[in-house]
């Protein structure tokens, strides 16, 4: 019994220590970001790496989610004779919820794992230590540019996901099933509010961008410097990143859309 209590105590202490380290590293990255204003190229290169490489999977996924929304939405709305509202349903689902959330989950799997593996391997290969010995802070030179690139890329990718998804819903709803095209677009235009729907979706994707990118970077930075350590860190990025997105989504939805 005492052994179990001791083990629990150790576990809780380790958890608190990890949380403290994670918080301290987060603020250290923020504090190390000032120099990026003088060297924006460091961030734009990473936006290209993170954003461009995630573009295909985001666009293709958005299209298929749009197709499914078109089919499912039509099936449900048709029961109540409201299939004219299909455009509104697709747009609201994507901008408020699916765009930011699914993009963040895909981002964690595609760009997040790449970031963790890259940083972890740099650590295992002593590249970060070499940088420190050259009097260059890895937080400033490596982590901060990648962090801001992820934060900037996420809302752009979510917007692309939503736009492609709406087009997917249009193809299935209007072109294949035969919903009236005018009703599809006009209901969407009339029902989607820029501030309450689109802007809140953008806020969500920025928050997810901060969370997922930071989790990926932190896991890489704290990885055991071995191949097995980097593999474990990559897995943790997907698990912790995905759960954080879902948990934050619930929190943000409750805050934004509750009356």
């Amino acid at each position, binding site marked *: 019994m005492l052994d179990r209590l001791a083990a629990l105590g150790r576990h809780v202490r380790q958890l608190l220590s990890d949380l403290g380290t994670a918080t301290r590293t987060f603020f250290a990255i923020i504090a190390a970001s000032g120099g990026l204003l003088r060297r924006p190229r460091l961030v734009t290169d990473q936006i290209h790496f993170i954003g461009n490489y995630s573009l295909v999977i985001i666009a293709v996924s958005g299209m298929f989610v749009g197709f499914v929304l078109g089919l499912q939405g039509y099936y449900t709305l048709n029961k109540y004779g409201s299939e004219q509202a299909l455009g509104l349903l697709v747009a609201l689902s994507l901008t408020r919820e699916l765009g930011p959330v699914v993009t963040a989950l895909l981002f964690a799997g595609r760009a997040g794992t790449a970031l963790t593996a890259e940083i972890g*391997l*740099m650590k295992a*290969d*002593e*590249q970060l*230590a*070499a940088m*420190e*010995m*050259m*009097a*260059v*802070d890895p937080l400033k*030179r490596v982590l901060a540019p990648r962090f801001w690139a992820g934060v900037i890329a996420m809302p752009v990718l979510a917007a692309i996901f939503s736009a492609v998804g709406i087009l997917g819903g249009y193809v299935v709803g209007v072109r294949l099933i035969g919903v009236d095209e005018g009703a599809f677009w006009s209901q969407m235009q009339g029902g989607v509010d820029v501030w309450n729907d689109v802007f809140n979706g953008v806020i969500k994707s920025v928050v997810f961008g901060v969370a997922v990118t930071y989790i990926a970077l932190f896991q890489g930075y704290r990885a055991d410097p071995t191949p097995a350590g980097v593999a474990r860190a990559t897995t943790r990025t997907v698990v912790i990143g995905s759960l954080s997105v879902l948990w934050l989504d619930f929190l943000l939805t409750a805050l934004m859309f509750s009356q």
Partner: protein
Amino acid sequence: MDFPRGKVIAVMGGSGSGKTTVLRLIGGQLRQQSGSLTVDGAQVSTLNTDELYKMRRKMGMLFQRGALFTDLTVFENVAFPLREHTRLPESMIHDLVLLKLHAVGLSNAAELKPSETSGGMARRVALARAVVLDPELVMYDEPFAGLDPISMGVTANLIRKLNDALGSTSIFVSHDVHESFSIADHVYFLSQGKIVAHGTPKEMMASTHPYVKQFVNAEADGPVPFHYPGRSLAQQLGFSGGADA
């Protein structure tokens, strides 16, 4: 341990004897638990991060595996410290980098990625990067490990020549007796974190210290046991008694 200005010092010893730890302590990557460590008049353990980084600008370090940045070319790797710490025009950076790469025989490999270089080439690129800012102190962690005999000789000569040309201090840790003794002014032998002997290469060659003798002559028997300590083979195989095989 003393590392006087202008000298080439070898730190030698078996695996796990604390050679690399000495370099990490000097570079401030580790803090000593007791005693004191002074570099250029400053106590390393009392320096804050900014002061430590300022001190490191006067240092260069060659890591055991090179530690080249894999996303940059050979040229960009060597240019990295210049771009981070100087405001030199691009044309001057270009010339300086090519001169350093020429010194290590790799000016024609400037556009290669580290993944396209051999282990020996990567080490030589890392050497060029370590000295590109003409540091006052250069530390080399196993500079000869994994090199072919030709590269080993060239690298050893390069360490000596660079040291003399820059007027800097060089500290290198190595297992290689022949190359180390050929370029070092002074040699320290470490075992289990302690200095067991030190002196000029000539003195070390003539030393009767059992550890130095075993190391210099590559003898299997001596103060450093070949077998990891523990039960004898006879005991492990289930026979009673028996001496260690």
